[in-house]
């Protein structure tokens, strides 16, 4: 005679496996490694993938392959896709806030504010896509019968190492991709959970595969490889501590990598930091 349990058995939660985001897919780290994120009370929150330098290499290959196509898309189209990402983010705001609060220990109100700020900044950045040539380009006066134009163009593949927060992550990615660069993001520690939810947003926002690649793990392990990688054109090291920046700059000098560290309010100069200017001469009257 079976006895009926007094309380129903608690439902088994279906936990998410946190993986990486490379070339529009979600692979595990090739190293098979993970690390644990704990709450301040020591409760396990998640086991994100601990990316290796080979994951970085794969991500750079994907970013390089995607770059010309993304740069060729019209500014209008890039802006649209970034706006689409904001729409998807809006729908995930609750989830992101919960994850941020859980992983970092901030109050849910504060986490919620951070997510909304991130979405607002993202939309603001989306708007810059078709204004860059006006803001940073020019028609230059020259002493001859020529038109002379300064045209800003994306640099190529940019690595970003943002600080350990969702807002810092958004602040690093949006200005890099809006101009037509592709990105390999190195997301540290507890920022991994929200970053991978953001990857799910990207995967459903018509962003071409490879434009944004997200690796979670440790800056100490990945940043030196990114700095020395000959196929990365720029490196945003805003999340790297002051002591470690010089070594990265030395490693990046081999291929004249632009290595920048940003502080203070988000500004369009952060977009321009990873753009190159092309000067075009055209004879007048031909």
């Amino acid at each position: 005679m079976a006895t009926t349990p007094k309380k129903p058995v608690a439902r088994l939660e279906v936990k998410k496996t946190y993986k990486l985001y490379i070339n529009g897919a979600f692979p595990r780290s090739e190293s098979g490694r993970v690390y644990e994120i704990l709450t301040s009370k020591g409760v396990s929150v998640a086991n994100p993938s601990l990316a290796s330098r080979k994951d970085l290499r794969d991500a750079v290959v994907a970013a390089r392959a995607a770059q010309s196509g993304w740069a060729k898309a019209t500014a209008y189209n890039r802006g649209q896709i970034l706006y689409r990402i904001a729409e998807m983010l809006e729908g995930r705001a609750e989830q992101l806030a919960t994850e941020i609060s859980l992983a970092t220990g901030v109050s849910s109100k504060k986490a919620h504010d951070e997510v909304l700020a991130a979405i607002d900044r993202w939309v603001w950045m989306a708007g810059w896509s078709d204004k860059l040539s006006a803001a940073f380009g020019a028609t230059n006066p020259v002493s001859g019968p020529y038109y002379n134009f300064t045209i800003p163009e994306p640099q190529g593949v940019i690595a970003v190492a943002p600080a350990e927060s969702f807002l810092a992550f958004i602040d690093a990615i949006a200005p890099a991709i809006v101009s037509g660069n592709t990105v390999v993001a190195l997301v540290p520690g507890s920022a991994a959970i929200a970053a991978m939810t953001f990857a799910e947003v990207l995967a459903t926002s018509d962003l071409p595969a490879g434009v944004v690649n997200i690796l979670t793990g440790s800056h100490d392990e990945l940043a030196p490889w990114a700095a020395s990688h000959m196929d990365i054109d720029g490196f945003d090291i805003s999340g790297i501590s002051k002591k470690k920046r010089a070594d990265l700059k030395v490693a990046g000098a081999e291929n004249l990598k632009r290595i920048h560290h940003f502080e203070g309010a988000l500004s369009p100069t952060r977009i321009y930091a990873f753009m190159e200017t092309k000067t075009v001469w055209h004879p007048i009257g031909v």
Partner: protein
Amino acid sequence: MSFYGIVDGSESSLKHFLAQLPGVDQVGAEARAAMLATRSIKTSSKRWAIDTAISMVDLTTLEGADTAGKVRALCSKAVRPDPTDSTVPSVGAVCVYNDMVAIARTHLDSIGGEHVPVAAVSTAFPSGRASMEVKIQDTQDAIDSGAAEIDMVIDRGAFLSGQFGLVFDEIVKIREVCGDRAHLKVIFETGELVTYDNVRKASYLAMLAGADFIKTSTGKVAPAATPPVVLVMLEAVRDFYSMTNHRIGVKPAGGIRNTKDAIKQLVLVNETAGPEWLTPELFRIGASALLNDLLMQRMKMDDGYYASPNYVTID
């Protein structure tokens, strides 16, 4: 005429010989190839494998848009794959269309690349759809222009419809044209042969007819040099050696684009045919993009940081 004393060249003797070949265990071949692909080759072994693979590359350009300039550039690259590093070995051969052979040979000789042979694709490559007279003339012409290796295609239509004698005779005739002046590689186009059994049969057919090398594909049809296909061909040359004491070479071509793929091929060779085959005289890799990746991996090993395609030539 006797071919290694195994067949007499008649349709019936060929059919009899090929029919008694055991079938290929498809699942087993694929599993074995996949298992060998998991081998991890690192540090000094990897360095050796990269240099060995470079020396085995048949640097190829087979485009309708080929120009004399592109062929000359390719020849320069074949002799000194990395102009900044003289320790990089020359590749195994340069592989071009018939009309580019003389241009390639002249240029190679003028830049100190006498040791790099020119291979010509022949017999109405890639389809093989031409009369025997044309195929013979095509081959003769390439050899007269300076080709030391002839990559001929078999008549897949004839093979698939069971006319083994026809395929055999074609190879024998081209073999006669080559004589002592050129090595003969026989291309099966394994993507069109469909089954591993057919690949095995074609391998024996070509080896008996006098091929020096058996080659998977033209590079124009996918799938091309998949690891199980190469495995079946390597088993064939190994068993043929034990039957006849003659070593026949193998050349996978098509789809081998990066260092990892190339090293997988070397592992297959070592574990299947044996280390005797790990030489450019008996193993070649037909490729164009592969060489750049090998060079980039080599740079990475030397410099300690990841290389960029900006530092190797486009073609």
